């Protein structure tokens, strides 16, 4: 099975507190630690496991700048066979539809049976997979937490729904799936693994190589645009307990007792 996995380089929220710059035009990017989007990592692991079971290849693709290459290498160190960087000044400022249109170019140049994305990334939009599928007229399922390969034309796919229940669907290939965390346990990538792929060549493709529709990409064609970042005025919020640890614990125990929190 030929599998394409779409990945994104994002600030690692488990390593950083996200703060806004003084003008509100962006988050503070100095000193941020970046990594591959958490959901994408599960998607790549799933792709590798499918390839190892039924054969084929895994290609990871990202739309980004030169820095984005590092996440491709990371995922190749995990076991992806190839990486492709989609990069062009014309891509800058694209909205979700623009990004999907760019990736569509790569899909059409290849011969993929299965296209995976993460269920969502740092902006919580969760849009690229569903848009890409609709543009390609391929079947789509979101929040996938199980994939059973039936044969080379069909897979059974579990979707996570409310209450921890799972919705099973039969999907025909080729199709697009967005992957939910927890579908597998992504393997650890050590520094040695990354070194091994450090010199592998990663092709870079631009708008012309991909034949992307110029009318939907870039900031000028974005129908949805971020205007600023802000922190909403704090509501009432919690009563913050302050003082020494012993003092705080004493106060907290009194409160817990009065609310029935200690039996």
């Amino acid at each position, binding site marked *: 099975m030929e599998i394409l996995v779409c990945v994104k380089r994002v600030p690692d*929220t488990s390593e950083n*507190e*996200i703060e806004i710059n003084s003008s509100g035009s962006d*988050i503070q990017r100095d000193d941020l630690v970046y990594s591959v989007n958490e959901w994408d990592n599960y998607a790549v692991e799933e792709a590798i496991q499918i390839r190892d079971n039924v054969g084929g290849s895994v290609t990871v693709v990202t739309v980004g700048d030169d820095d984005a290459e590092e996440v491709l290498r990371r995922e190749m160190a995990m076991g992806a066979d190839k990486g492709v960087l989609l990069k062009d000044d014309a891509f800058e400022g694209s909205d979700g*539809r623009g990004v999907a249109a760019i990736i569509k170019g790569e899909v059409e140049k290849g011969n993929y049976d299965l296209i995976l994305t993460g269920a969502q990334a740092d902006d*919580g*939009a969760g*849009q690229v*997979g*569903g*848009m890409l*599928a*609709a543009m390609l007229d*391929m*079947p*789509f*399922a*979101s929040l996938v937490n199980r994939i059973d390969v039936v044969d080379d034309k069909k897979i*059974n796919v579990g*979707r*996570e*729904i*409310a*209450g*921890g*229940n*799972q*919705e*099973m*669907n*039969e*999907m*025909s290939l080729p*199709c697009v799936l967005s992957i939910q*965390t927890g579908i597998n346990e992504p393997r650890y990538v050590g520094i040695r693994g990354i070194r091994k792929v450090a010199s592998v060549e990663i092709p870079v493709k631009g708008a012309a190589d991909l034949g992307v529709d110029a009318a939907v990409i870039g900031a000028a064609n974005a*129908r*949805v*645009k*971020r*205007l*600023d*970042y*802000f922190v*909403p005025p*704090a*509501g009432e*919020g*919690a*009563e*913050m*307990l302050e003082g020494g*640890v012993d003092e*705080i614990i004493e106060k*907290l*125990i009194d*409160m817990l007792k009065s*609310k029935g*929190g*200690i*039996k």
Partner: protein
Amino acid sequence: MARQIFAYILHKDGVADDTALELVEAARRLDASAPVTALVLGTGADLDKVCQEVAATYKEVWKVDNAALSYPNAEVVRKVLVNLIPKGAIALVPHEHFGMDLSPGLSIKLDAAYAPDVVDISALEGDKLTLVRQEYSGQVSTHVACDLSAGAVITIRAGAFAPDESRSAGGTVTDKSPDAGDAGVAGRKFLEIIEAEVGDVDITKSEVLVSVGRGIEDQDNLEMINDLAKAMGADVSCSRPIVDAKWLEKARQVGTSGQTVKPKVYLALGISGSFQHMGGIKGNPFIVAVNKNAKAPIFQAADVGVVADILEFVPELAEKIAEMK
């Protein structure tokens, strides 16, 4: 031409989802002069029941009855909606597992803008709608401009807009089934629902929950959480990353894709307070949050907060409680 707004109504077993009351308010906030139509898709007697219920809140209700809609397969629903929703209209859909499945593709097929997971509406000037979204799990908010000139699909976060409980619309139900076209899709077929496994505790019945999140860092550290819960006489629950890492069973996960809990006291330890997690906490419990980041969103929702490293704070708290007994 007047702007038209459509609200997609989620329903199950003949009852409309709470979001039906919230979308009508979101529509009003978006453009109070625009007519709002509820879209109710399904089949049989349950569908009619939902339509009657929804007509109390929406002046216009469009019903589509089709056996292919007995289970809401997003691909089937999308096909029907593309036939029903006129060009340039705005479609509001709840942002949850179904809305996330349906909406991105729907926006492409309608050739409309897509604004996901909207929590507030700031302004409308001509075709420029200014919305509020959140990024980085709610750590920061953004204003977003959405161009409505070709219509838009907008998903709305549950709980972000106040429910309109007036039920005074006295609306009419119109059967649009003949206009919905062929609902058949190839490529994705619904098979079955596999119910969640039952765990060894039922946290939905717990009065006191000690809930642990990614801040616990390591599986071995769960021991201190168990010790604290034991000292308090509480049950242990958790956020999603703990289940994803297989450190605790799925039945202990609180949130929209886990359990809905109604405790008296909820102690959130190293949990950031994402809306998917908080969406599983009902009944207005006394919430205590311990987090090392003073700006963590959980402190907005909690009653009492402590800025501390749980790895140090929790053992001390457990010890003091145990001593006291």
